């Protein structure tokens, strides 16, 4: 996978977490996924078309998704409610928008679809492409010191 496809997602994720959530995320070792399935419990999905075509997904554990909701909205929650699902959709939209801005700087113009969110583990995904899926695992710290991981998967061709 060309590094020019990876960097926009790294920069976008780090920037969005820092600005919207005031959280630093650390990128762990990227992996190539063999299975076309979601990784976490709550997954935002965004299709991208234009100079390239592909899909990105942003996946959290239930605990991670609830933490994102609480930090973004400022409300408490004790389960994955429709509001939590919407918040993950919006975060997916914002990260995608920021990544597209980075792609634009590299001369690649992309348009996004409306974000969708699926709840459940190992949901089979069609990433539109035939090439492997790159997974970028980002870890971040919750207020109680626990570590959570957000998985950003994408495939572009």
């Amino acid at each position: 996978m060309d590094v020019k496809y990876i960097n926009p997602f790294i920069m976008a994720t780090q920037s969005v977490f820092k600005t919207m959530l005031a959280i630093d995320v650390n990128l762990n070792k990227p992996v190539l996924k063999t299975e076309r399935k979601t990784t976490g419990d709550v997954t935002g999905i965004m299709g991208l078309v234009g100079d390239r075509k592909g899909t990105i997904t942003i996946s959290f554990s239930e605990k991670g998704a609830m933490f994102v909701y609480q930090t973004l909205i400022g409300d408490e929650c004790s389960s994955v409610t429709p509001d939590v699902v919407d918040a993950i959709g919006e975060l997916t939209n914002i990260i995608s928008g920021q990544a597209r801005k980075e792609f634009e700087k590299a001369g690649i113009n992309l348009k996004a679809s409306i974000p969708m969110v699926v709840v459940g583990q190992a949901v089979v995904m069609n990433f539109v492409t035939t090439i492997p899926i790159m997974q970028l695992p980002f870890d971040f710290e919750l207020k109680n010191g626990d570590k959570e991981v957000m998985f950003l998967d994408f495939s572009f061709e």
Partner: protein
Amino acid sequence: MKVLVVDDFATMRKIIKNVLKQINIENVLEAENGKHALTVLKNDTVDLIISDWIMPEMTGIEFLKACKADETIKKIPFIMVTAEAQKDNIMEAIKSGVDNYIVKPFTPDKLREAIDKAKAKVGK
């Protein structure tokens, strides 16, 4: 300060409200599109409008044009929020009289700065 937040996505309205709260602005009205916002403005007075770009029924740019064409509300500072930092969109908003714009994602400080600049532009 009373702010009208216009966005078709309830979660985004909540996010903006949460950011506003962090800069001590808690008096917030909400509308889910430009058409709804114009109705709100007929019945209430606000000091600032923060509007999304892409919305059903009446888009942000249509809402902006309607506001700037109305003598009774044209002086309310208008900030456009967009996730797509595309120059064409921004240029269209500037030509239509937007007082400032802000690109998602943004920090409370960035929003504060955008509000101050928008207020200064309309002389408030």
